[in-house]
């Protein structure tokens, strides 16, 4: 019994981080929206969702209409409502975000509308245009790939998606913190997107492995590459392959793919190296799995952390201790990792330098979250610069007819919402390339 209740506690730790609004709360919150003209929140949204209109529609009890307004611009409005760093996007731009008021809870309202549609509407909200007879191959069934596939299919093209993993969804399925994507939302959303029709997904197909770009070029009229960043940077330290030293993305994936979270292995003294949202997701989830001490270590200061301040606070309120200005020096291990040594850093003439001071932390688990990178070997022939696929203003790569988007290209922040926008815009570019109206 005691064990059961402990397991329940762990699973409860992975409940919805932000509880959804009920109808009464949604109506009340929508009533606060000023319905701004040419609203700043629209401009702050990478997918340009007409936020004042959809909130007005919630207020008028046209919730399905509100969802349609959102999904017209962003077919993954459901995921974005859950994971967007709204505090640095729409909600930061909200005119009520002043010292005497609070911004509208745009993310929660968006979730309210999209969830309502996905739950209650029997019919997919969009229709396909007349079939063009053209075919498009999409590589990667993550946010960029699925957004591209959905829009390309809407425009009348037949789409085949090739996905390296067993399931569709990309980071939505494998990479986001579990408490942001409860109740198998990524798969539900994928199913919802597929309901449009005209899209076929083939899983376990990896570029450079059992999938070949040249073959795709021969068999399809256009190609979209949305493979994301599938490999990770290493610390370049000895003992990095010791048991207990993991990539944070693999740790997060194992949490996402395990239904009973109490079955996920976690250390007692966990060190997370990195300062992005992945590092925060890993640290907070490690804590919620029951780790006694979780320490997030970053070689620079808090201002340089790429995680939003909201995420950093989430880590702190979950009991994660954050150590700044510390660079990994060595991994002390026997068969299993035991300790890590860090050297204190500082900036000197604008450059990060190490000091003489070092310290050691106990560790039975080390999670590396120092960034992901593009798998270059798979992209024979495509121009790559600074680790990203080079595309022109129409999302076309150096090879004619091969387009790209999402984290694989250098287009602002590596955010789900940006990937969706890339996929959508690339689909329009592909449509023009194939002779359609853009």
């Amino acid at each position, binding site marked *: 019994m005691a064990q059961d209740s402990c397991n329940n506690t762990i699973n409860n730790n992975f409940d919805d981080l932000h509880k959804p609004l009920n109808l009464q709360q949604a*109506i*009340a919150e929508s*009533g606060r929206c*000023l*319905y*701004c*003209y*040419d*609203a*700043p929140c629209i401009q702050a949204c990478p997918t340009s969702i007409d936020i004042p209109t959809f909130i007005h529609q919630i*207020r008028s009890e046209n919730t399905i209409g509100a969802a349609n307004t959102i999904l017209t611009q962003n077919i993954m409005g459901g995921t974005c409502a859950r994971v967007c760093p709204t505090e640095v996007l729409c909600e930061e731009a909200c*005119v*009520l975000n*002043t010292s005497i008021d609070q911004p509208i809870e745009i993310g929660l309202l968006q979730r309210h509308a999209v969830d309502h549609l996905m739950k209650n509407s029997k019919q997919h909200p969009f229709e396909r245009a007349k079939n063009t007879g053209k075919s498009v191959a999409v590589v990667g069934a993550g946010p960029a790939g699925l957004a591209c596939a959905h829009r390309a299919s809407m425009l009348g093209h037949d789409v085949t998606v090739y996905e390296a993993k067993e399931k569709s969804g990309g980071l939505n399925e494998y990479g986001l913190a579990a408490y942001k994507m409860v109740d198998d939302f990524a798969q539900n959303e994928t199913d919802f997107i597929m309901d449009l029709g005209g899209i076929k997904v083939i899983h376990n197909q990896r570029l450079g492995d059992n999938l070949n770009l040249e073959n795709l070029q021969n068999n399809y009229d256009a190609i979209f590459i949305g493979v994301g960043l599938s490999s990770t940077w290493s610390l370049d330290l000895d003992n990095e392959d010791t048991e207990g030293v993991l990539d944070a993305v693999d740790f997060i994936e194992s949490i996402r793919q395990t239904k009973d979270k109490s079955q996920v292995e976690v250390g007692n003294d966990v060190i997370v190296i990195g300062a992005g949202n992945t590092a925060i997701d890993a640290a907070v989830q490690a804590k919620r799995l029951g780790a006694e001490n979780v320490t997030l270590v970053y070689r620079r200061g808090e201002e340089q952390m790429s995680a939003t301040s909201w995420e950093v606070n989430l880590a702190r309120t979950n009991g994660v201790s954050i150590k700044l200005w510390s660079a990994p020096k060595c991994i002390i291990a026997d068969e299993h990792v035991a300790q890590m040594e860090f050297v204190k850093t500082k900036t000197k003439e604008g450059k990060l330098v190490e000091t003489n001071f070092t310290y050691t932390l106990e560790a039975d688990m080390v999670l590396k979250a120092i960034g992901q990178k593009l798998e270059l070997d798979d992209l024979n022939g495509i121009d790559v610069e600074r680790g990203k696929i080079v595309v022109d203003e129409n999302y076309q790569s150096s090879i004619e007819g091969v387009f790209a988007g999402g984290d694989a290209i250098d287009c602002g922040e590596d955010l789900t919402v940006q990937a969706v926008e890339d996929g959508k815009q690339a689909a329009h570019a592909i449509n023009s390339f194939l002779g359609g109206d853009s």
Partner: protein
Amino acid sequence: MDIRSKPSLKCNVAGIESINPFWLASAPPTDKYINVVRAFEAGWGGVVWKTLGEDPAVVNVSSRYGVHKNRGNIVGINNIELISDRPLQTNLDEIIRVRKEWPDRVIIGSMMAVIEERAWKELAVKIAETGVQGIELNLGCPHGMCERGMGSAIGQVPEMVEKVTRWVKEVVDIPVFTKLTPNITNILWSAEAAQKGGCDAVALINTVNSITSVDLDLMAPTPTVGDQGTHGGYCGAAVKPIALNMVAEITRNHDTKDLNISAIGGIETWKDAAEFIALGAVGLQVCTAAMLYGFRIVDDMIAGLTGWMEEKGYQTIEDFRGKAVGNTVDWNNLDMNFDTKALIDQDSCIECGRCHIACEDTSHQAITFDVADNGKRIFTVIDDECVGCNLCQIVCPVPECIDMVPVDNGLEYMNWTNNPLNPMNN
């Protein structure tokens, strides 16, 4: 040292002394002993007992109230309830009991009958014998009773208003209030008729005929009774502007300006109360606000009105009663050369753009929209285009961000009556 005493809310309505001007109107809140006692315990100065008719008592239907909401807030409700559905003697006995237990409070007996002299006179005498301080004639109910020749069926015909008022005045020696319906073309015709009939006061407005909403599933107006509905009497905050105007019509009309007015219509706060008094009302009646929040709302009506009077230096209600009447004029008397312009305070502007789009789409294209180099959205009034309509100020969500500033254009006062464009001046 300030030796002034606290302002007094005591008032005299048509000869009836009341500890304060706040009475509950004839309606469900004044239906029976328990409600009225609770109201007096809460501090209300008086009640107009729910309208009594001759036996047999009417039968009310279920459901009874419909609601009109905006952004979740109630702007008004309507009702399809009839007069008291309890036996006449039950009501009379309870009135006697409350009068005895609460001697310093006012009870007015409201009544309604068919258009027969005998009916009005007999019922009026029975009610007067309970010791009520006055009688109110319900000539306004716009649903149900009017279909039986009562309520607004009488109130809409000035001759009948006069006749009924006279009948009752002939048999009772206490003040008679004639309650007027707003569902007419000109309130003065009814007020003057009541005056001719000898009333001591007019009470207005009764409810406004209305359908608050249509249930789009049932395809029936609300409130629904089974799968049907009917029109009902609209009341609450939404009808206050209609009531204010009708009160002012009477107080600024030469023949009726001295009529005692017991004002009714959307009074929810002390401010509403002060506005009606400023337009000349001697007493006030409240219903909807009490139905929505309970009798306790009278606390703030009393405290708020007292506090405001103290701040303004008014010792009694008479000190400010009717003070806005003189400034309420016909359009013809407004200064056509007065000029005011909107001024936007850039520091408190939160850049929502509501003023711009309201003016651009629906008014005079007098507010420009520019984006500064730093991204700040700047809205600026073009004085030459601004007609001073107030719309931008009305839609602005920030208090005092948009000010309407009178400008000195050097022109003398001129209204339509002395304007050369007026054909009457040629």
